[in-house]
């Protein structure tokens, strides 16, 4: 009996990965660098960028501000997704944050230093309370309601003419300078991405992840999952409302576009392209897609078509996303190994 020989690919952790898995094993600079270099690269790159103002020009500095905004929204989406809530309307968080800031700044003349934190926390609270009744919904229903909410807000503002109506509120106080804006939003983005990553390594994060995987067994384990989901929505809303509040002062304007589809579909596409579930992925996606969309600015709304197609390709063809792929290449290697095939096997 001669068994046929076939080949398959095998994936193994690199030696250095295995050695650096445990903190006690780190002994050489090479291993330490292997661990921290990717992080240092990201952090240093982002922190040095604002210093290169003369070289990059104000245009690209603005692009990075918008990129970070979308990255924050994508991080927020990713956190919700990690709890099993798929949002099709990140614009609702963004818009609520933006409008609260605009209202505070215009009505009470408060400086950005006060309005942004207030709008972030208060906006997140408002969003949590808005979504609390529907947190029990599973699957597509949560997506449907988040899809409808920004449109509802848009219509209500348009119809009742509250908060400036279709005109919006303009002439709001500006942030001191573009460099300061950049540092603020870059710092917040980095804090969020590393913070969320850390949060999901704690026991608390484990409960959140478990809710996505199997909510009923989490109930059976004696957790009040509605309460946990509400907390997750609050945490997820924070970066998104911050993004809204921040961009309001950056543009010195808030209006109906704050609830526009762009703020829903771009973060969604970023998170999916980068790889949902890993917060770095959401950030990576935003840093790929937003500058790309700036390069394609001349194409008008065709850009939205392009995002949609990219989104479709990734969600259908590469659901894993880019970040897990890169991560795998960094930590693992592949080799071809032979294997015996049984008679009639493939």
């Amino acid at each position, binding site marked *: 009996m001669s068994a046929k020989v076939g080949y398959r690919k095998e994936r193994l952790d690199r030696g250095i990965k295995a050695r650096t898995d445990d903190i006690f094993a780190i002994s050489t600079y090479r291993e330490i660098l292997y661990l921290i270099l990717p992080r240092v690269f990201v952090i240093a790159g982002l922190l040095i960028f604002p210093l290169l103002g003369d070289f990059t020009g104000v245009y690209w500095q603005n692009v990075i501000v918008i990129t970070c905004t979308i990255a924050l929204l994508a991080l927020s989406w990713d956190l919700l997704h990690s709890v099993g809530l798929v949002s099709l309307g990140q614009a609702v968080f963004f818009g609520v944050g933006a409008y609260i800031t605009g209202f505070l700044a215009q009505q009470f003349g408060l400086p950005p230093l006060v309005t942004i934190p207030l709008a972030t926390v208060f906006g997140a609270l408002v969003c949590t309370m808005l979504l609390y009744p529907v947190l029990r*919904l*599973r*699957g597509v229903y949560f*997506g449907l309601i988040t899809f*409808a909410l920004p449109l509802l807000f848009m219509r209500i503002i348009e119809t009742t003419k509250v908060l400036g109506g279709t005109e919006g509120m303009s002439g709001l106080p500006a942030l001191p300078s573009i460099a300061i804006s950049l540092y603020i939003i870059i710092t917040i983005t980095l804090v969020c991405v590393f913070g969320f990553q850390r949060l999901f390594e704690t026991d608390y994060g484990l409960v959140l992840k478990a809710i996505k995987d199997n909510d009923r067994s989490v109930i059976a384990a004696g957790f009040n999952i509605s309460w946990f989901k509400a907390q997750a929505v609050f945490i997820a809303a924070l970066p998104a409302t911050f993004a809204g509040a921040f961009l309001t002062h950056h543009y010195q304007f808030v209006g109906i576009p704050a609830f526009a589809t762009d703020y829903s579909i771009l973060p969604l596409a970023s998170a999916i392209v980068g790889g949902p579930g890993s917060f770095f992925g959401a950030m990576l996606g935003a840093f790929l897609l937003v500058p790309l969309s700036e390069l394609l600015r001349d194409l008008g709304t065709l850009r939205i078509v392009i995002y*949609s*197609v990219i989104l*479709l390709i990734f*969600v259908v063809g590469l659901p894993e996303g880019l970040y897990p792929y890169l991560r795998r290449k960094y930590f693992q290697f592949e080799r071809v190994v032979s294997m015996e095939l049984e008679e009639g096997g493939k």
Partner: protein
Amino acid sequence: MEASVLIFGLVNSATLMLVALGFSLIFGLSGVANLAHGGIYLFSGYVTWMLMNYLGVPFLLAVPLTIIIAGVLGALIYWVALKRVRGLHLSEVIATFAVGVAILELFRWMGFVTYEFTLPVFIKGSVDIAGVSIDYQRLLIIGIGLLLAFALWVFSRYTKMGLALRGMAQDEYTALSIGIDSDWAAALSMALGSAIAAIAAISILPLGIISINMGYEVLIMALAVSVVGGLESITGLVVASIILGFAKTITGTYFDPKWMEVIYLFALVLVLAIKPSGLFGKFKELEERV
């Protein structure tokens, strides 16, 4: 006044029902929340327009052609995209959402936004009923809506194909075990739903100009009706259309017409928050919330 509320309420209800039928059919039969519904609806409108204006196809031929093209598009969306993410509800939603936005924004980019984009009505003219002047097209919408709802009711209860699709919706594994092909059934339901969206588009769009934002609006209308009525029942669909249609008309007549469009969104959010299975939904009650 009352007569006009009654008649226009009926027209609005029929419009809503037509718009929602396709969406509700797909959701009820294959469990896919087809967020590309608005896209397919507008796509059909533009295809009819293009057939007539670019290729000079007569209206009577353009209509069946459009319905067939829309059906093929629906089946294609299933075979190309949805088949690979079948069962992953969230990916399905994101995929159809992406398709819908892509179609709508593509037409916006191509400049299909001006006043020349209108479809002809079937029969010109209007008639007076109880002192209210109403055009034939609006009356036809009522007729087409009722006819389609009835046809679907018969199809899903008394034909083998309809029964097979319903079986698939109720219990996929059992249906598979008695030889119903799951992919075939889902693709067919997508095709049917899209064809119905095309019928709705061809009958409703002649009432005004075709605009891109209609696509998003239609999706919201379809969602509202399907969710309020319960996602798998035709009775629920009819009742929800009547409730929302009259709510819309009454708001428009006695309050401010601006509030008319808010009604759907408000109803949608309210029903999802209180009774997500809708007024008439039954068998998904346990699954959709915890």
